[in-house]
């Protein structure tokens, strides 16, 4: 299980759900000071992840369609912000932006370099958190995709949020049910992998927990329950991204700092690289 290579003959699917609710306009401390608000950093992280996935699909001067990529934003509306194969989205919707990145210096360290990243997602924050609708939309997409790609590496879903779904006070049954629809999808290589990242100020930060004990709020427990247990087969990828999974660890981070969000996205998208 979870052994299929993602390739142009056996493409993968990455679905990123981005919270665009009002609270995403809150300040968020970024390590490189490039963004100081949650929606800005979330958009930067998503754009960087798409750029890196595309980079892994770049073969010489040719882009290869090794995966499908979809980004769904949820806030005032729930909408598909981007969807397509690498060859269809390699020209970023809003051009490129120069950011500072780190590059191995060949001597075991890193040097800071300027690099361009594509901009497909812009920072937005408005209204509530219709997480159930977003997972429902993802389920539609994934059900169709797994039906057409029954033997490929299973789809990977990221959910980046800073808050609680709209129906949390009603037991979040709609959110739970929509997430379950996503989780029930599978290929012959494994079930869909759902990674939830709750971004916050990092106190207390919980990374890849294996139980709910350390989680205080109903929304944290909900996100934990909605997250996949990380398969042993993917531990090495998690470790390469700087994470430390244990047996039973779920793909979930609570109060994640920008560094942790970046690590989780690196880990989740590593299969494409």
């Amino acid at each position, binding site marked *: 299980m979870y052994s299929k290579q993602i390739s142009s003959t056996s493409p993968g699917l990455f679905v990123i759900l981005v919270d665009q609710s009002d609270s995403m306009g809150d300040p968020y401390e970024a390590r490189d000071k490039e963004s100081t608000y949650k929606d800005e950093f979330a958009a930067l992280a998503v754009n960087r992840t798409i750029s890196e996935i595309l980079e892994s699909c770049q073969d010489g*001067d*040719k882009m290869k369609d090794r995966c*499908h990529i979809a980004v769904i934003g949820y806030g005032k509306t729930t909408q598909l912000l981007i969807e397509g*194969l690498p060859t269809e989205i390699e020209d*970023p919707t809003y051009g490129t932006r120069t950011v500072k990145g780190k590059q191995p*210096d060949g001597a075991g360290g890193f040097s800071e370099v300027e690099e361009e990243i594509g901009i497909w997602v812009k920072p937005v924050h408005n209204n509530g958190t219709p997480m159930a609708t977003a997972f429902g939309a993802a389920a*539609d997409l994934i059900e*169709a995709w797994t039906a057409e790609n029954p033997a490929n590496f299973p789809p990977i879903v990221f959910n980046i949020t800073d808050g609680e779904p709209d129906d949390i006070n009603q037991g979040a049954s709609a959110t739970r049910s929509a997430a379950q629809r996503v989780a029930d999808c599978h290929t012959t290589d494994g079930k869909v992998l759902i990674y939830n990242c709750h971004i916050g100020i990092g106190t207390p930060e919980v990374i890849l927990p294996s139980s709910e004990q350390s989680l205080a709020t109903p929304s944290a427990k909900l996100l934990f329950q909605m997250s996949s247990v990380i398969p042993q087969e993917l531990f090495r990828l998690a470790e390469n991204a700087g994470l430390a999974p244990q047996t039973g660890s779920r793909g979930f981070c609570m109060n994640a700092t920008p560094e942790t969000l970046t690590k989780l996205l690196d880990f989740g998208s590593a299969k494409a690289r």
Partner: protein
Amino acid sequence: MLAARTFLVWKDGDQWDDCQDSIYPMPDDLSGETYAYAVADGVSTSFFSRRWARILTRKFGENPERVFEDWQVWLEEAQAEWQLQIEKIAHSGKANFIVANGFRAKKPAAATFIGLTLTDHNEDGWTWRAALVGDSCLFKLGKDGDVSSWNIKSSTEFCNVVPSVESWPRLNPYAPTQVGSAPFGSESPIRESDSVILATDALAKWLLKRHELGQPVWGTILKLERSEDFEDLVRRARSEEDNSLQNDDVALATLSFGAIHPVFAEQTFTPRPRSTEPKSEAADPVILRNLWEQPDAKAGLLSSSLERTDRIKELFSRTGSKFVLQFTGILLVLLGLMLLQLMKRSAELKHLTRENQILRDQATARTLASKDRAIDSLSISALEKESDAFHQAVQAVSVFEYKSSDSEQIPPDQLQRRSTSKPRR
């Protein structure tokens, strides 16, 4: 006598220009006077690795001795050539931001490499030397039946992190392992009936694994003559039930020095294909796109459209069957009606034949009677009246005969042919 062959097959599902492996000489360029052979496997996740692999093998073939004289100088020349090519691409205006990023950040291409050269031939055999970086393998099959391999000795040694030659200078670069016969190394020279094989990682691993399991296929590999034969072997090896060849690019060079040793010649490949797996096909991006063209109407559209497609297929299938059944039924009914008509006509024929005979008998009898009476009474008028009756009877028979021939416009044999011909589908 040296007999050499080189082969290159790319990953199933890819095209020729996707192939990251490179070989020298290229299969079409091989001549009997070639004494330098090289394979390189571009690391697929690195930057423009295909170009890098091709530069490495071509440069080695052009002047193999330079690799052994000063590896570093030779490598810097290869790197300069690659960098110039990529700079042109990055500044061409056609490159996307990823290529521009990669060049600005000096992202390297990486490749494994083997270069082998035959330097001299004397009474001891061929003097040889080779430079190796990474998990592409060099095999030497001795006439005593032994198999030697460099740098990998066991199929379990293959892993995802391998030493490679990079296209930008780096601190502590991998230096090639050098092996060879005296005066370059401690290995024995290549003697009559020895064979040498160069293979990139996927094939090298498969060959080693088969050897370890006691199912070696050296004979099959060494007897390969045509590219088609190698492609067929690769296809079958990838379809093996157990220990199948990984779907990867494959470069192979085989060098036989005289007749293949009988021990190896007998080690041939017997395919044991696995049962067919369900084929994985890429999703149609157009279908996925359509789902999202109207954000408000996105939910469920795709799945329902797929269901509709299935229903249409099913309905079409059912409708097609129905049409064939209906057509066959109508044809049978028509044939039945035609047979009934024929039987009816046949009965009428028999009946009229009988009547005809009666009329003939009666007419004859009446004529004879009339003649007798004419003779007897010499009544001419009576004779003419009876004669008219005869003519009427004859005419009746003629009319019947005409009708009978008319009824056979569709001859019975033709009806038979029609009834036995198959209905069209």
